[in-house]
């Protein structure tokens, strides 16, 4: 195995009437996303998680026409973003 290659872990140990079958998925158990308190922002973690789950649900829904699903219209969850221009560092 190459150094730093994603670690494989078994996801199903038994299958097919008692015959031992091992299924693997590439999931790196060593790199959990670490939490850090960055303080306040315009959107809360709750809002972000809800938005991610909503997008995920939309991706899994089949499009009525069978074609590619279009991005949904913006829906206010938090405060309106400011129009302050970005400055370079």
């Amino acid at each position, binding site marked *: 195995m*190459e*150094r*730093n*290659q*994603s*670690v494989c872990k078994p996801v199903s140990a038994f299958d097919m009437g008692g015959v031992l079958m091992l299924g693997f*998925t*590439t*999931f*790196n158990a*060593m*790199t*959990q*996303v*670490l*939490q*850090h308190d*960055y*303080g306040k*922002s*315009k*959107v809360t*973690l709750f*809002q*972000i*998680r*809800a*938005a*991610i*789950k*909503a*997008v*995920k649900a*939309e*991706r899994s829904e089949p499009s009525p026409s069978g074609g590619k699903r279009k*991005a*949904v*219209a*913006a*829906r*206010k*969850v*938090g*405060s*309106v*973003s*400011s*129009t*302050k221009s*970005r*400055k*370079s*560092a």
Partner: protein
Amino acid sequence: MKTSKAYARQVFLNCPFDDGYRAIYEAIIFAVIHCGFVIRCARERDDSGETRIAKIVEIIRDSQFGIHDISRVECDETNGLPRFNMPLELGLFLGAKSFSDQPKQKKKRCLILDSEPYRYQKFISDIAGQDIRSHGGKAMTAMKQTRDWLATVSNRRLPGPVETESLYNEFQKDLPDILAKLALRPTEVQFVEYVKVAMEWLKDRQQSA
């Protein structure tokens, strides 16, 4: 999900934040988070009661690793002057490593990024001997450089570059819709907002795996 403020897991990011550089710093931030580190930056706090340099010093003190992009050496169009913030913060980081008596500060490691190889010799030659890499102005190259460097200096097992790039591409496809639901314009997303979205997206992915 672990909560950790360990010094050895924090990466200080010193880079431009203009629209022209956005693709690169978003890729770098994603790579750092995916590799299991905490990304820190002067833009994470907007406390008017604190001077910016004090904020930067505190973050540098808390971070074993630093990524410094010095590619923005062009003069500003409005005033004809170059910006020195990135080299200044790089100097602070190197100084913290050299002048501190704390053993953990001596362990600081930094990655210096430029757009072209060896170009630094023309305008900041004193940094010769540091870990300097070029990204050619390409986000995916910067991402790979970041991931590979973290794998080397941290001595930890990290996701492979192909996995990080693949996830990043998926994240970028979801990002516009996520921001739309949060009523955020892509060009106005602040550092903290982007980091939080990337973190939660990756957490969701790992929980689904």
